[in-house]
């Protein structure tokens, strides 16, 4: 095969290594011993100087966690050993509101990841988390003045205990699943975003989650509350360095979309390929509210994520756009869950996946239209592209349409790159690998165009890199 483009490939590879695959040399300010137990949770809570009610929530959740089996209906989680994970690592005592006050080693980390630059360029606010704790948070003054709150979750618990207490664990109770119970017991960090009535942020806010070690657990807890008529776009980015041993990421995201408000939640995870990722994300959507999930799942070894919207008020609506790359020895178990619990609600799910080099991509969805959710509308579309003969894709849609006046459509497709398409593009001077990248990116375009530019550029580069690594086949 032709060699002339290898420099280009190397460049992108290097870029990715510099960008993500490096370790931050910090001696943790505090960490608990490995393994999970009542005493570890109590110690964490004490270290965080939490109110009793929170400690009690944690301890109850721990019991639920211990009583629930590891899910076996999806990817193989047998390597997970909950006793060898370190559940709480605090990298730094201080929390900064200004990048200049962040310790150099940590600031360098986020500089490399481009976080301060993104903030300057196009964000209304930013939270940065390393390991178990937020190290930086800032919201531009104009939004602070309007009563918007954006900070790491631990600080929010200290400063706004009443709001946190009222909303904590309502949308995602610890009994929801084993990882949700684990998060509720061991949560640390995450972001808290509160938008007062009628306020609409015209720039997005972003939280960036960075893991640093092996056998490390990151259990951030995010809460977004959009009061009636509010509107916000929240972006989440996630990366980690690569290790031979796994690390576990299990977040909870609870979103309150109150009457007539709108929340867009964009998540682009590019976890290294040793991360087991099982976040639980869910929104309650009230009358005339709108919840938009946009998910780009590039990295990780195993991902199990099914962002959910519960449409609780009339005319509530939701969309869930999902792109998953399952290339290499990875299992991407992605999906969406929508429950239509009120009349005239509507939902749209679009899921696109790519499987290659033995990768597995799964769409697992649940869609329910409750009796009495008159005239509700729902559509589910899932398309899979499989790049070779050793990779797989599965679809498990679970649809329950219990209301007669509702309308529902479900489309699914599984395909391969057509050689005619590759030939055609090559006949216009485009190299085979580039032709394949273009076709793949075209396949993803419906969803990619909804991802913020900075991240979709990443996505483009990554797909090109993956296709280049693939070499010319066929």
């Amino acid at each position, binding site marked *: 095969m032709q060699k002339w483009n290898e420099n280009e490939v190397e460049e992108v590879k290097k870029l990715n290594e510099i960008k993500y695959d490096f370790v931050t040399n910090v001696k943790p300010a505090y960490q608990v011993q490995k393994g999970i137990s009542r005493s570890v949770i109590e110690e964490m809570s004490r270290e965080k100087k939490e109110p009793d009610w929170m400690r009690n929530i944690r301890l109850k959740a721990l019991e639920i966690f211990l009583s629930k089996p590891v899910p076996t209906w999806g990817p193989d989680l047998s390597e997970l050993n909950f006793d060898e994970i370190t559940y709480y690592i605090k990298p730094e005592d201080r929390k900064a509101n200004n990048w200049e006050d962040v310790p150099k080693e940590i600031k360098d980390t986020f500089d490399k990841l481009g976080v301060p630059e993104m903030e300057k360029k196009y964000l209304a606010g930013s939270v940065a988390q390393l390991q178990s704790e937020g190290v930086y948070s800032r919201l531009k003054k104009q939004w602070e003045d309007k009563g918007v709150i954006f900070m790491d979750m631990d600080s929010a618990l200290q400063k706004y205990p009443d709001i946190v207490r009222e909303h904590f664990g309502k949308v995602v109770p610890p009994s929801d699943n084993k990882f949700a119970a684990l998060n509720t017991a061991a949560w640390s960090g995450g972001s808290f975003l509160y938008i007062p009535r009628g306020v609409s942020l015209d720039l997005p806010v972003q939280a960036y989650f960075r893991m640093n070690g092996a056998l490390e657990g990151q259990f951030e807890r995010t809460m977004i509350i959009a009061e009636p008529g509010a509107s916000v776009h929240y972006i989440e980015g996630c990366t980690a360095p690569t290790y031979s041993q796994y690390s576990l990421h299990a977040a909870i995201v609870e979103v309150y979309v109150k009457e007539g408000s709108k929340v867009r939640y964009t998540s682009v995870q590019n976890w290294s390929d040793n991360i087991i990722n099982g976040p639980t994300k869910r929104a309650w959507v009230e009358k005339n509210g709108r919840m938009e999930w946009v998910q780009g799942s590039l990295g990780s070894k195993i991902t199990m994520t099914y962002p959910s919207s519960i449409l609780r008020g009339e005319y509530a609506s939701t969309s869930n756009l999902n792109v998953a790359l399952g290339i290499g020895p990875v299992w991407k178990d992605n999906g969406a869950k929508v429950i239509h619990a009120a009349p005239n609600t509507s939902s749209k799910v679009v899921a696109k996946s790519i499987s290659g080099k033995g990768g597995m991509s799964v769409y697992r969805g649940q869609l329910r239209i409750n009796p009495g959710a008159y005239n509700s509308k729902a559509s589910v579309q899932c398309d899979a592209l499989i790049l070779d003969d050793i990779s797989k894709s599965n679809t498990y849609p679970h649809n329950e349409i219990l209301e007669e006046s509702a309308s529902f459509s479900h489309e699914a497709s599984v395909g391969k790159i057509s050689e005619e398409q590759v*030939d055609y593009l090559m*006949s*216009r*001077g*485009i*190299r*085979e690998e580039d032709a394949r990248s273009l*076709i793949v990116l075209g396949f993803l*375009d419906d969803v990619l165009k909804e991802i913020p530019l900075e991240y979709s550029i990443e996505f483009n580069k990554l797909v090109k890199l993956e296709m280049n690594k693939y070499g010319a086949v066929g």
Partner: protein
Amino acid sequence: MDSNVLSIKNLRVSVGDKEILKGVTITVKSGEIHALMGPNGTGKSTLAHTIIGSLRYKVNSGEIMINDINLKDLQVYERARAGLFVAFQEPVSVQGLRFINYLRTAYTSLHPEERLEYKKFVEEVKELLAYFGLDSSFIDRGLNDGLSGGEKKRMEALQMLILKPKFIILDEIDSGLDIDALKVVSKAIGRAKENGAGIIIITHYQRILDYIKPDYVHVLINGRIAESGSGDLAKLIEERGYEYYRGGEIDAKVE
């Protein structure tokens, strides 16, 4: 004007076990238009696909050269970079691959020495869309996605102009075109000729040649050039019909 030569010499090509082209020789120079006519199934499209290097077509002997470059060991994309452009009979579509992104990638691949000014490029494409009577929204649409047969043909003709190839092979560009589209595509072929491209128009019918006069006409029958002549030959072929050549093949006269 550039002076390039595409020479196809004694080309024998098989698809599977069947020999389709049985020794074809055509020489095309910059600024020339050649019409390659013949009934269905006689190897016209095979010639187009072989020139661009589709793997399905196996060259048994003979050669294809652009100037002094032998295309033999070149892959499809390298042949395009050597200056070839084939407008396909049935262009494929690629969902979600925006036409402008595709076109820009193709252009920069074909002309790496040029610094592409994106804004100007977009303007140029928009002008051409208007020229071909195509909607300007096509620029952001998936490549050929949801286009009618006639629209796809016009999009091929548009690419023929914008990508500035040295040699253009139009495989039945006239099929599925209404009379207005046929006129504008013919005009575009004239433009390509003026720009210095050497062109082979592959066609079953003489109709397109009413609008764009070829310099040379070749008749391909059963994998061989049965007759070659000047542009006027097309009319004669129309009058005689291809039946005329069925009796016995007339020795190929080249140029």
